[in-house]
């Protein structure tokens, strides 16, 4: 067998140059100063101080986290029954159902948002149908607000939650649940005391994954929030591509990065524990 260095070399070089180096450069930039479009390489904490002392940016950070939390809880509530079904079903349709669950992942994010725009717009399918039947007079505010953003985020990230949960639920021994019920537990109590605790690692892993994806989403808030819902990734985009304040944009990016790395570290530990719990 050829030495591992030769086999791994091209990929590792590619990633070090075009993935690690750019991130390190961004980290350095976030400690630099900017004046009149010129970046001065002089170590300073000015950018971070600006972020954490301005109520506007702190407010955006707060809104981002709230949006992430809402999307996560909603994904959990909708994903759990689906994962349960997918893990247990013996249906011949199962491959088809799996494609259905994965479908949001396989279709570009702009297209998914556009689908929701067709449904939720003022003259969209839902409002038009309701008005035509005379059930409402004015269109419901379904889009260009936090509701529309949450619905689309939920759609985009539900598959991740379902896949995390299905992995755990599939390995859960159905006899445990039967045993609890044979011993007199009601189905609800058996679920709460047996299934739910045993699927906790999957819940944790799925939630962390969805949360970290939701707080870094950017296309959904722009298209369905119509710039009325401000989130941290939008600030990063504006600072980098419109204001051209790279040090401040980089500092914003690192606030987001720090949050994500923290969540990913928890995620990895949670999935490891999930796997250990099964063995």
């Amino acid at each position, binding site marked *: 067998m050829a030495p591992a260095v030769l086999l791994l070399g091209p990929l590792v070089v590619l*990633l070090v140059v075009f993935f690690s180096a750019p991130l390190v450069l*961004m980290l350095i930039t976030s400690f630099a100063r900017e004046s009149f479009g010129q970046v001065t390489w002089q170590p300073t904490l000015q950018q971070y101080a600006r972020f954490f002392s301005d109520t506007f940016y702190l407010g955006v950070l707060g809104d981002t986290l709230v949006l992430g939390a809402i999307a996560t809880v909603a994904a959990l509530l909708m994903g759990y029954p689906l994962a*349960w079904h997918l893990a247990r079903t013996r249906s011949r349709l199962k491959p088809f159902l799996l494609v259905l669950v994965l479908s949001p992942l396989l279709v570009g994010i702009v297209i998914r948002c556009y689908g929701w725009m067709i449904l939720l717009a003022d003259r969209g399918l839902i409002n038009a149908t309701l008005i035509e039947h005379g059930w409402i007079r004015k269109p419901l505010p379904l889009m260009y607000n936090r509701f529309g953003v949450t619905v689309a985020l939920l759609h985009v990230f539900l598959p991740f939650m379902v896949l995390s949960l299905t992995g755990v639920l599939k390995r859960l021994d159905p006899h445990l649940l039967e045993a609890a019920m044979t011993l007199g537990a009601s189905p609800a109590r058996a679920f709460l005391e047996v299934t739910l605790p045993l699927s906790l690692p999957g819940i944790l892993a799925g939630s962390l994954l969805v949360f970290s994806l939701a707080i870094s989403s950017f296309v959904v808030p722009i298209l369905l929030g119509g710039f009325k819902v401000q989130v941290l990734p939008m600030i990063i985009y504006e600072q980098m591509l419109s204001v051209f304040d790279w040090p401040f*944009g980089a500092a914003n990016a690192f606030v987001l990065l720090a949050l994500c790395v923290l969540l990913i570290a928890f995620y990895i530990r949670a999935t490891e524990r999930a796997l250990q719990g099964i063995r």
Partner: protein
Amino acid sequence: MLRAAVVSVYVFLLLPLAVVVAAAFNAGNYFTFPPQGFSLKWFANFFARREFMQALWLSTHLAAWTSVLSVLVGLPASVALVRGRFRGRDALNAFVMSPLLLPQILTGVALLQFFTLLGWAQSYWALLLGHVVVTAPYVIRTASATLYHFDGALEEAAQSLGASPLRAFFEITLGVIKPGVVAGAIFAFAISFDNFTLSLFLTSARLTPLPIELFAYLKYSFDPTAAAVSAFAIGVVLVLVLGIARLMGLEEFAGF
């Protein structure tokens, strides 16, 4: 009750994609229910617009090269990661998968700054290399999954019959793991073809892949030409997914 909940979640997942496809074939300017009649005029408009055709060509081209490069760097790496016994293998494995874990907006921002300093910003190369960084991990994942199941004794048998290690790999191993490699290549193509976030930071007015063109179009107009573009892209991905499903089965592919 569980059944009703499950069915409604499936409907929720499918609905936005279904309305996009329906709107693409609908004659009216706004999609209503019931539809206002069948029409292909939005597709005609899509194919007649130069900017969409250029974007489609660029996306196809870019996705094909991304797929080829991802396999070229990803396949050897996954061989080393599955078979190699060396220190730091787990750490390396985590490192090569890390582009999947990092939000793409961060990768995009970092690459934009990096390429600008290099003077490569808004070039085809920048776009291509950025895409390979995020697609190579998928090739590693699918290739590794099939490599784990491969019986190393087959390769040893070939070598004891006189084949060189390289020949044994190309004639025996590659033949057996081919489905996983091809599935990875298809997936890399699909990811690149659909990629929006990374492309946004690496494109210019002259260099716009299809998702970026669609996004720009949607910011100013709402007409169903966008639906035709989307339905077309959904069709492309559907064909690719069916290909993956035939090659390796979706359960293994989804990782459970």
